[in-house]
């Protein structure tokens, strides 16, 4: 049995340091196994989030040798060298060790109204073809690990959590905007408080997505195009003005006020 070194960040908002732990490996061991082994055998106070250990819940996000990833999906033997560095994701406030406060993401999500079916289909079984929902299903694969939010430079470097909901919520809005039965015009919110214009398509989010959702190409860019269509396309404006094409008929959307659902921690 081979032994490796796991170099973990230990600390809280007041400061911290890197601490080395020796870990005995076994076949196909993942980084989360190594953290668990430390908790059980060396220091039970190491804080880390996890739930399913099968890459389905998105709880154990961290930065492994600097690369944002799920600890349950990163095999120890895939990491280069005999020392593996594990640090918390950096965009959100640190609580302790590998655990950060990601509640902001939930507060932004709470501003997005859920599916609101058109009057003609409300309360009836939907009739939709598979081909019409394939794209929406891609977005709904999201496990909310927030790795995309973690690497988004609008949030990470520029700290514009006041202006941009981030890639995760773009994917969420896209899944609603492209839902064949949804009746809300979500573009005003996209252009306004959700801040789709802030994304400048560096595709970092797409690169780290453990569900391989094409966040930039399939969600954000089409959303940008739709906003441009409605608000900035002079040709379209002209055609609407002379009645050649009609304005979209979807109902206006009101952002859900913050006090409807309180996200506390």
């Amino acid at each position, binding site marked *: 049995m081979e032994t490796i070194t796991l170099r973990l960040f230990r600390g*809280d908002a007041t400061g911290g340091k890197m601490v080395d732990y020796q870990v005995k490996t*076994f*076949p*196909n*061991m*993942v980084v989360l196994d190594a953290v668990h082994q430390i*908790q*059980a*055998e060396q220091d*039970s*106070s*190491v*804080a*880390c*989030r*996890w*739930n*399913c*250990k*099968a*890459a*389905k*819940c*998105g*709880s154990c996000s961290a930065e492994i040798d600097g690369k944002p990833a799920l600890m*349950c*999906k990163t095999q120890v033997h895939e990491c280069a060298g005999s020392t593996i560095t594990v640090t918390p994701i950096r965009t959100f406030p640190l609580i*302790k*060790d590998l*655990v950060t406060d990601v*509640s902001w993401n*939930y507060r932004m*999500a709470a501003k*997005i*109204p*859920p*599916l609101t079916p058109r009057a003609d289909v*409300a*309360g009836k*079984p*939907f*009739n*939709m073809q*598979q081909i019409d*929902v394939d794209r929406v*299903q891609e977005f*709904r*694969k999201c*496990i*909310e690990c927030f790795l995309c939010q973690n690497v988004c430079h609008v949030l990470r470097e520029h700290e514009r959590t006041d202006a941009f909901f981030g890639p995760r919520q773009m994917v969420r809005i896209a*899944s*609603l905007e492209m*839902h064949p039965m949804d009746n809300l015009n979500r573009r005003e919110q996209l252009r306004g408080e959700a801040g789709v214009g802030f994304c400048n398509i560096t595709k970092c989010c797409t690169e780290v997505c453990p569900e391989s959702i094409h966040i930039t190409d399939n969600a954000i860019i089409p959303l940008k195009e739709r906003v441009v269509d409605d608000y900035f396309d002079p040709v379209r404006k002209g055609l609407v003005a002379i009645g050649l094409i009609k304005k979209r008929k979807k109902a206006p959307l009101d952002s*859900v006020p913050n006090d*409807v*659902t*309180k*996200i*506390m*921690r």
Partner: protein
Amino acid sequence: MDSYETFEYDVLVIGAGGAGLRAVIAAREAGCSVGVVCKSLLGKAHTVMAEGGVAAALGNMKSPDGMNEPDSWKVHLTDTFKGGAFLNNPRTVEIFAKEAPERVLELEQYGAVFDRTPEGLIAERPFGGHKYRRLNHVGDRTGLELIRTVQDKAVGVGMSVHMEITLTRLLKDGDRVVGAFGYRRDTGKFVVFRAKSIVLATGGWGRMYQFTSNSWEGTGDGLQMAYEAGAELLDMEMIQFHPTGMAWPPGMRGILVTEGVRGEGGILKNNKGERFMFNPDYTPPLYKGQFAETAEEGERWLEDKKNNRRPPELLPRDVVARAIYKEVEAGRGTEHKAVYLDVTHRGAEYIKRKLPSMYEQFHALGAVDITKEAMEVYPTVHYTMGGVWAEPEGCATSVPGLFAAGEVAAGLHGANRLGGNSLSDILVFGKRAGEGAAEFARTAKLGAIDPAQIQAEISVLMHPLELQEGESPYKIHQELQENMQRDCMIARNEQGLNSVLAKILELQTRAAKIKVNGDTAFNPGWHAARDVRFMLRTSEIIVRCALERKESRGAQWRLDYPALDPVWGKKNLIATQDGDKVKITERPLPDMPAELKAIVEEYK
């Protein structure tokens, strides 16, 4: 007196999986203020692990002749009774089968996007023990779709979400439950919730076993809080061993392989390459003649479900799990003491479309390409049919003010749960529990909080940090797991059960001296100290009930009492707290009404 924060709601929901969130929606729509408490982040509950689908008789699927399969709530009801070896509560099953289709269609209105049939309706797949295609699904990530849908809806209707709080005691005012007490996982600070009524939706408990598909959350604290508050626990011996857990690599041992693999044509083989489920000894009398008897017929069934019988890999879970156990015991297992599950004949493209997360799970975590090679599988602890007794109409428990829904509750599944029934369970009874709690809250006032109850719990929680030396909670947990795995697993006998019971009692004594390092700030060791004590008590109850039920029925397989006993088939076991002792009593199962008997007779 240590300080604590206090929050007040009309209805408090404990647990934010599918059942809890569906209860939130119902209570909110009934006009209540609702708080929900979860141990993890919102949307991470164990519901995400459900894969295959949600069972509801929509009857959307067509046979090759163009006719719809004649599914109905009556067939679903019959299948559920048969799967549960008729230990189910009849009224609970009736409500369940009738209301499941409505709850699934409602999910679609909330935003769930199910796979579609060529006609544009919700696609349904075959599953073990279900006569017709009935599992409404999204590839193999139906649980994620379900939880995200009710999460978004619940956020939309409004609630207060308290994330990463562990509750450890229900607070009572006289007979009635009036609140709950616990700690914040991040800081360790204490919290009190006051509510007019409480919905318990805390899920199951599998973590006392070594190999389980449960996450760390499955420690049964909700169950124990209810037990300590005086609630009746029903049929606690009934624990489902899912036939196909991952058996290799070691770090992945126990992780679930969806029954959808078999629903999509996956076959089970032993080390001789035999499809052992065709062994007629493995098919229980109740199912004789209803399953394919040759591999050819099983293959034809994939294309023509009307004129062929389904392959025996799709027998109920308890049956398949026992068969796998017997194959391995007889020396016909793989090198890792498992059997093969092979779906390669369905082709890479089909597998990746219908079972994407299984493909990914094996590919990324196990370095196995399931489109090219067989998986190694072995039964894993998966689900708890037993739990807090909840009456069917409004999910009230035996404690006033306390309601229960989902896996923590008992009554629906009897001795064995059919795949897919858990997801419809949480929708049907999540809603009913929310409504029941709202109705109770309409006439109730907030009760008095008793500081002595809080102080007693604080003492229990803080004790491990105050000791200078003592036992490691991890060590005790590990010993419990090894013993439960060895002696209270799929095949049980009196000797083994007595031996694990003695071990549990010894561990309970040692657990009083658990010591942990550090402080209360996000300290997993400190959390484990409380969890382990809950798990020890739950394990004791499971073992005592398993000893008591001297027959083999569904998930309870006694090697020393290998037959179904019609007398036992008329009895539930009830566990209640009696001081420090567990009191176990028998209670007659309610009679099945004549109209349900007629339905079962017609469709069985």
